[in-house]
């Protein structure tokens, strides 16, 4: 009898262990996902996707839904897409974006494109160190979307489509999942079909004006060899992607203000005086459709931007030395900083900048609002 009891006890323990193991296994089981496949131009350079957030079909689909869903905001009226409209290369056309509070935010909405290249610092002032880190900041910001993440998770968990999408992508619904999914969707926003891309591939030739502008864009002026230059490439060498992959390369003070009015910029992150007034040199891809310009949207047109570099530069302690010395003059005039470009040279640079517009990116269905497309039931 004792033996039967003993065997029953052993069997019971074994049963408990088995059930617990199955339960734990199912809890920890990662969903079966499918990696996104694509090719990108080699000239864009190397990119990395975080090992703990592989780019999967499921995570991108979830991220796309979240990106366009105003449920992410406190009042259910503001989505990521409110400030990042596809037709405007994921900007909003405003000098300063406006969120749930109705107050103007501190910065101009940045274009979202080719974000896999240059992933060290996001936002104009570099305050986010990854796309995942960046993704949650606007959601929680009191003026942008004003959401409480815990409440948001409860809300999302009550919606069937999100139960399904989170389950498929990550197995569970969490704040980390929201960040990862938004980051994944944004990583797929690849633009590589502008006229300039086609030029690089040899599919089209640039017009004389565009080619003249390209050469000016690429040249740091050197009067010793009679080379005139627009000096653009010095700060915008990563102009086809989203910035630099190295620590603080790509942050620059481009002479918008004197010392007394100099905004914090990168200083806000590093607390180094040398970084005061330095902002991220943004991508120039689709620049013709992303006005107004600069971190505070102070310039309405590309002509105004060029006019700034051609005579509007204001001196300050951290002004880029590359800007100071680029004057196209044999005798640099210390008191007045300007590129001294001729009107036809300015026009040519602007013509070249227009070749960076990628219409297929601006209308790519894969990046569009899934709610409008009725893809909820996919």
């Amino acid at each position, binding site marked *: 009898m004792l033996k039967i009891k003993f065997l029953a006890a052993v069997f019971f323990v074994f049963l408990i262990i088995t059930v617990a193991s199955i339960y734990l296994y199912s809890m920890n089981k990662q969903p079966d996902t499918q*990696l*996104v*496949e*694509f*090719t*990108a*131009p*080699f*000239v*864009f350079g*190397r*990119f*990395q*996707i*975080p*090992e*703990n*957030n592989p*780019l999967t079909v499921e995570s991108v689909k979830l991220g796309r839904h979240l990106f366009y869903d105003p449920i992410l905001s406190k009042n259910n009226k503001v989505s990521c897409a409110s400030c990042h409209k596809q037709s405007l290369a994921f900007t909003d056309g405003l000098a300063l974006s406006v969120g749930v509070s109705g107050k103007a935010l501190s910065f101009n909405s940045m274009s979202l494109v080719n974000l896999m290249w240059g*992933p*060290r*610092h996001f936002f104009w002032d570099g305050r986010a*160190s*990854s796309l*995942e*880190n960046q993704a949650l900041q606007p959601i929680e910001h009191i003026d942008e979307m004003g959401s409480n993440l815990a409440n948001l998770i409860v809300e999302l968990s009550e919606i069937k489509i999100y139960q399904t999408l989170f389950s498929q992508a990550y197995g569970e619904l969490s704040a*980390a999942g929201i*960040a*990862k999914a938004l*980051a994944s969707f944004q990583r797929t926003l690849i633009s590589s079909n502008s006229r300039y891309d086609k*030029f*690089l*591939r*040899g599919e*089209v*030739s640039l017009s004389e004006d565009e080619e003249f502008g390209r050469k000016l864009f690429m040249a740091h002026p050197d009067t*010793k*060899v009679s080379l005139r230059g627009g000096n653009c490439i010095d700060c915008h060498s990563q102009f086809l992607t989203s910035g630099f*992959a*190295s*620590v603080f390369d790509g942050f620059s003070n481009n002479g918008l203000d004197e010392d007394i009015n100099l905004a914090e910029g990168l200083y806000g992150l590093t607390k180094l005086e040398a970084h005061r007034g330095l902002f991220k040199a943004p991508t120039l891809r689709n620049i013709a459709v992303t006005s107004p310009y600069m971190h505070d949207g102070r310039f309405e047109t590309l002509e105004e931007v060029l006019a700034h570099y051609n005579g509007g530069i204001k001196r300050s302690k951290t002004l880029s030395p590359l800007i100071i010395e680029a004057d196209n003059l044999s005798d640099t005039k210390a008191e007045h900083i300007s590129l001294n470009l001729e009107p036809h040279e300015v026009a040519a640079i602007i013509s070249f900048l227009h070749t960076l517009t990628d219409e297929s990116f601006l209308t790519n269905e894969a990046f569009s609002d899934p709610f409008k497309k009725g893809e909820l039931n996919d």
Partner: protein
Amino acid sequence: MKKLILISLVGAMLISLGCTEVKENAAANTTDQPIDTEKNIEKSQAIVLLTGLPTLGTKDSIAIIELDPESDNFGNILYDYPLPKFDAPLHHLYYSPNGRLYATGLGSECSLAEIGLVRNAQAKPVITKVECLDTQGQSVGEDIMWHSVNGKLHMFVTFMGGTDSSQIDAGSVGVFDPQTNKVLKVIEARKSQVEEGQPYIMYPHGISAYEDRMVVTSTVHPNLTDGVGNTVTVIDLNTFEPIENIITEDAKPVGFPSSPVEVLFVRPSIIEGVEPAVLVNTMFGFETWKIPYDAKNKVFAKPEKVYDGSSAGTGVPLEFYGNDKELFISHAIPGLVKRYDLKSLPSLVPSGEDIKAELGAHHMIFYSSASGRKLIAVQNNLLNLGDAKDNDPTDVDFIAKLNDHSLTVHDLTTGERLGMINFKDKYQKGIDNVETLFGSGFTHHH
């Protein structure tokens, strides 16, 4: 037996624990950790043309290899793209100013090709296609140069076989639209077709240019038997016509004409304020020549011999490569690279000890190791022709001896050899050309 099982089990456990640890480390990489892209693991990777060796049953391919001697992957092929079978191997790789990848080829079926290089979703470089271009019958492609003529960029290619390689004085320079790859003009002036004493182009190989003057060398007939040249041809880029032949020949150490091979137009864009001159290596003359150029009057002066390999114990000088401080010249015999002070050009002022490579020292690349050590890798193969000892039908005279089929890697500062990959031993293939994955980044042509 039990002991064996026990060891196996313990081993399996250790492996299992190892795997777990890796996964945990990966999981610890929280979402707000920045991705460390500053460690560019591709800086030490090279793209190479590998040639199948007939007696070893291997086939031609384009490969990406790891060349950092500090890496566990040193010498490993990271990616291999099998090439279609052409009548002769691809020969040289070149990146265009816009980053497009091209290859010349030693045959007629694919004497010039554009190679589609992209990244896949795992960020790995992959080749999508090798598109053989229409050269209007020009064969045996050698060197490519992109140069602006009156403000417009052109792609120039030397074809040692010209439009008819059966001619004993074959050769042409193809002028291509660099956007469309279409032939704009074939510059051809066969010696037998021009008036006596008029300039001609024959077996052109090396190419270089400054302003509106281009120089191409006259090397050797592609079949290596029908003829050998001894001149540099000057082409007026305003008319795309040859205007002068300059003989660079002195002693004939092996009894052949000098066979000028690679050429470098030393010019102010390379060294600020330099007096322009053309440097010429003569493959069978074993010499390096200097041809001073008066840019104002567009006149080339009498050539001067600035290096004599016969007396210095070197032979078959081949390539010119440079960085911002030095010029490097490879000598297939005895297999070394000589280095010169860049600022002293066009004079050849040694800047350091020779880099001792292997027989056939030819192309080279410059790069850094993971720890930041500056490196040079030398490809040691004159031509990927086989050796009669292997019953290889592609053996041609002494050239087989100049095919070490290897890459040697050296410290750039000291010349110390840090590693070697013998492609014949390791992959049963020869290596025809090497280029850094991101392009040479150098100022000089080869």
